[in-house]
């Protein structure tokens, strides 16, 4: 059914974004928020309307009949729905965040980005996919850059990787078009699946190009360093969007293209390890390495946004590992974790933005004790890290558990070990962030800090709810995921509202939550029954009546936060963790040097004639070759 609601959810935000350039800043943010409310309605309105599409023809000579546009797909809708819900909450946060003091001019660009993002999820063909993908890239660069020199350096690094990825996408699109004669995603997958038998090398090259595009976007190894730059330097409220939603485009792409090809190609097309096709197996290892690498880097970070960016990298590693199992349990786990990560990382970044909003500080060890003055932010962050560490009964556990089940179904124990290492490490760095930012000593200069305003609190509370529900009742997300799997022709996961069947055992979120609540109730009873408690100031207890100022002791100095995991840093001293970045940097520098050399060649005097001779010689040489 040709319907204008699909273009409306893509073009609408873009047009409103362009229009909102004309409004004052406060107005822009409100417009942004309102647009997201409408979008949410629209997205749930189109739910399950399978035959929705919007295609148009473009007159473009090299392609006979260039049809492009959008079409409803269950997979796309799932991504669209979770991203719209998250975006709405982020936008509510931003409305509060961008007051006079903190306002950035990114709202219109962000709206355009939201439109492009919706377009990606609803893409019907490669060309449309490519167009919205690329639009998303450069818009996000401008947002990340937002006029700061340091941010730009981060953003341009992201954009360079992203541009390399999009160009890889461009190449692979044409390589497929050459054989299928159209840009449709479905026929491309079919072709690749057939080619995997007839011309495996060709198919692998195309798949590798796709994978490159999606890896760069999702920051899998060796592109794992851009989030630590870009997420950290982006505007604070945008980081949540960047880390929650934008990093998932690559995952979406992998699910859209690469996975179906492996599912559709015959079994004997690729060599298999543990029942996993070799390329996927390889991808799985890359993901596992990414997870471990991101974790170690996060443990070493002292900048809270950088730390969480590295954590995002690690989480994408989990998702990638789950995808690479090639089982429907793995796909379900990946989708589930994608959604969960969207919410909990959104919550974490939002609460960090709230912290920065009130304190203006990003270095963790300069903060501390904010839990006592910003309870809502603290609880959000706490739930966020519980979810992120994969501790039941919050959402992160269910999805991490499923990831392990998926890995285990294929008996990929070594990858699982790596992932488990990352997961334990996650607990370390997450607690570090919790402690150094929210616990310990409250520095005197932050004693008057207040909880954030109603808009931001509303957003934080909303995110909390989104973390709690899927943990207790995984079915809320797994049922839609099952319909996604069904639409892609995969087996469905056995699940109820509370219950999930894995490969080795089943869990019941309801019972786990019940047990936890009951245990806490017992302890609470004990706590209440115990003796009286008295609240005293912190420095009143352990200084034994001395006045701390006398020995020059302030709260800041008494806050143990810097070099928190010094022992682990010592252990990892010999690992060249920055080697990849260093290589990129060296490459960039040598390019500039080469550029200067070429320029000197042009600028050099008295070589005018020689250049003609050289040119002709070059022509002859190349022609003979």
């Amino acid at each position, binding site marked *: 059914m040709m319907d204008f609601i699909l273009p409306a959810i893509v073009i609408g935000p873009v047009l409103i974004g362009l229009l909102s350039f004309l409004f004052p800043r406060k107005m822009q943010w409100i417009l942004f928020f309102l647009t997201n409310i409408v979008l949410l309605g629209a997205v749930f309105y189109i739910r399950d309307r399978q035959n929705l599409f919007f295609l148009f023809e473009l007159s473009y000579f090299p392609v006979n009949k260039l049809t492009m546009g959008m079409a409803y797909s269950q997979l796309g809708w799932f991504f669209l729905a979770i991203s719209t819900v998250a975006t709405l909450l982020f936008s509510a946060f931003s409305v509060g965040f961008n007051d006079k003091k903190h306002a950035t001019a990114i709202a219109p660009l962000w709206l355009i980005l939201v439109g492009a993002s919706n377009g990606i999820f609803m893409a019907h063909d490669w060309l449309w996919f490519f167009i919205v993908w690329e639009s998303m890239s450069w818009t996000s660069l401008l947002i990340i850059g937002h006029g700061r020199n340091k941010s730009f350096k981060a953003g341009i690094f992201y954009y360079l990787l992203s541009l390399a990825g999009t160009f890889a996408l461009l190449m692979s699109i044409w390589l497929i078009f050459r054989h299928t004669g159209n840009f449709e995603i479905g026929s491309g997958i079919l072709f690749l699946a057939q080619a995997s038998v007839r011309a495996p090398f060709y198919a692998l090259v195309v798949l590798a190009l796709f994978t490159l595009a999606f890896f760069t976007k999702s920051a899998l190894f060796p592109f794992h360093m851009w989030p630590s730059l870009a997420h950290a330097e982006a505007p604070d409220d945008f980081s949540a969007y960047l880390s929650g939603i934008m990093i998932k485009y690559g995952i979406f792409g992998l699910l859209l293209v690469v996975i179906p090809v492996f599912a559709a190609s015959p079994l004997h097309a690729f060599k298999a390890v543990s029942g996993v096709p070799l390329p996927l197996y390889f991808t799985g290892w890359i993901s596992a390495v990414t997870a471990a690498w991101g974790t170690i880097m996060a443990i070493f970070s002292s900048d809270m946004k950088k730390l969480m960016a590295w954590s995002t990298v690690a989480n994408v590693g989990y998702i990638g590992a789950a995808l690479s199992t090639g089982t429907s349990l793995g796909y379900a786990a990946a989708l589930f974790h994608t959604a969960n990560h969207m919410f909990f990382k959104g919550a974490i970044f939002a609460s960090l933005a709230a912290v920065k909003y009130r304190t203006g500080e990003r270095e963790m060890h300069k903060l501390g004790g904010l839990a006592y003055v910003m309870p809502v932010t603290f609880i959000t962050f706490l739930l966020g890290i519980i979810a992120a560490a994969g501790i039941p009964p919050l959402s992160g556990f269910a999805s991490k558990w499923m990831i392990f089940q998926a890995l285990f179904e294929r008996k990929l124990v070594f990858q699982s070990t790596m992932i488990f290492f990352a997961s334990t490490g996650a607990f370390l760095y997450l607690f570090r962030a919790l402690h150094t930012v929210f616990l310990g000593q409250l520095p005197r200069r932050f004693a008057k800090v207040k909880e954030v305003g109603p808009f931001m609190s509303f957003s934080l509370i909303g995110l909390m709810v989104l973390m709690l529900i899927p943990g207790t009742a995984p079915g809320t997300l797994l049922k839609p995921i099952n319909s996604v799997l069904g639409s892609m022709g995969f087996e469905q996961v056995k699940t109820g509202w509370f219950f999930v069947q894995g490969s080795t055992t089943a869990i019941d979120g309801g019972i786990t939550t019940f047990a936890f609540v009951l245990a806490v109730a017992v302890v609470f009873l004990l706590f209440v029954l115990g003796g009286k408690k008295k609240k005293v100031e912190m420095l009143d207890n352990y200084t034994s009546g001395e006045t701390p100022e006398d020995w020059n002791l302030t709260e800041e100095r008494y806050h143990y936060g810097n070099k928190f995991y010094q022992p682990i840093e010592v252990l990892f001293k010999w690992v060249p963790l920055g080697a990849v970045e260093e290589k990129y940097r060296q490459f960039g520098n040598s390019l500039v040097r080469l550029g200067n050399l*070429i320029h000197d060649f042009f600028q050099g005097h008295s070589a005018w004639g020689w250049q003609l001779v050289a040119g002709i010689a070059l022509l002859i040489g190349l022609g003979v070759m």
Partner: protein
Amino acid sequence: MNQVILLIAIPLLVAFSMPLTGKLFPRVSKVIALLTLLFEAIWAGFILFNTKGAVSVVIGGWLPPFGINLVVDHLSGVVAFVVSIVVLFSIFFQLSSGLSKKPNFYMLSLLLVASLMGIIFTGDLFNLFVFFEIAGISAYSLIASGKNSNSSNGALGYLIPASVASVFYLVGIALIYSTLGTLNIAQIASSFSSVKPILATFIAFSLLTLVLLEFEIVPFNSWVPRAYQGAPSSISAIFSSGLALASGYVMLRLGVIVFNGGQGGFIRTGSFELGHALFGIGVITVIAGEIAALAQKDVKKMLAFSSVGQMGMVLVAFSIGTHSSIYGGIFALISHSFAKLLLFLTAGLIIMKTGKSKYTQWTGIARCSPLFGVLMLIGSLGVIGIPLFSGFWGKFAIIGSTVVLGKIGFIATTLILAASVVEGFYFFRLVHTMFETGEEKVPKVKANFAFWLISSLLVAVIVALGLRPGIIDGRLKKIPGELIGNAESGYVQAVNKQLKGSKK
């Protein structure tokens, strides 16, 4: 179609009357020059919209090979239209800017546009040479009119290699004439395959040296950075968007119609794979141009090297010689003309108003005057080839035709795209620096109505071409068919039909 000669004659007439009228009524003469350019644009548009296919026009009743003919087909129509608009906008910009020049400057510009039209429409190789020389003479003088110490350096740096190359070109002409007895392009095209292979290759080299030099192909293009830097920005814009476009057009004509006999596919002269050589040199140009641009701090030089890179990509497309690659090359050329024009004019205005020519000094300009940042951004997006902006469709077609060429094509595509990544880097670096919050206060840059008119038109064109390639697609898609024919191309057929018809 006979009125096509007006495109060459009128500006020449006005130009040569300029020294006199300029002395008497300096202001009026400038307006007359501008009106002439406006007439050029309108007339070129009129001719373009009335073009149904290749038509040959004989000048003065002398048939080729003794006389000279002009040929109008879709390709020349489109290119002439774009060139005339480019020159009109640049000169309008120069005229309306604070640094307006003496009447002689406008005379030279008219001379330049006349010669560019000649280059585009002429059907005769020697005539082509003459127009190239006129274009050269006016270009050298225009560069020298720049108000900095680089201008004479730039002019000489252009003059000397170009003159050497034109001597080579004349050698080629002499050899062609002595073997085929004609200098008419269509006649040469139909009999070029009879030339001995080694001689044919030699002729091709002699002719191409000049064309590639004007087409800014590495390593022939040593004149580019200093000429662009020395010339006023409006003239740099004409070089990049007009002269390069016209030379690219000549490259396509000579390569596909003359050397290859309109067969399509890689250009071959005899047994020599000229197409492969051009393909390789094109790839080298892309890489060298983009990397050199990366290292530049001077905005005009950066834009100049970026043009070099773009021309390399177009050369790659032309050398392949398939329908879609030619289409993509022309699309890329045209969109580059508009986008680079916008970039040069905006950059020129900023340099003129602030006196700062390095991008590192541009910090915060767009904070005070955001529209300039937006203009630079849109121009950059157009040049890089980001979807929804004009450059994309050209690049898209070019990539589509290179990547399928097997292993070498794959490698070349990778290199071209890698160079495009570099291009993306320096353009966004430039744009971002403008939006950066600088420490020192930057004065607000103001522009007059003429600039806003020109820039908004250009932005409209860039965005419109990006959103709907179809608006020029109708004309462009006929071009490859006219160049590449089964037996002989539409161009050659048209001329030969006319010759045969008049013989009877």
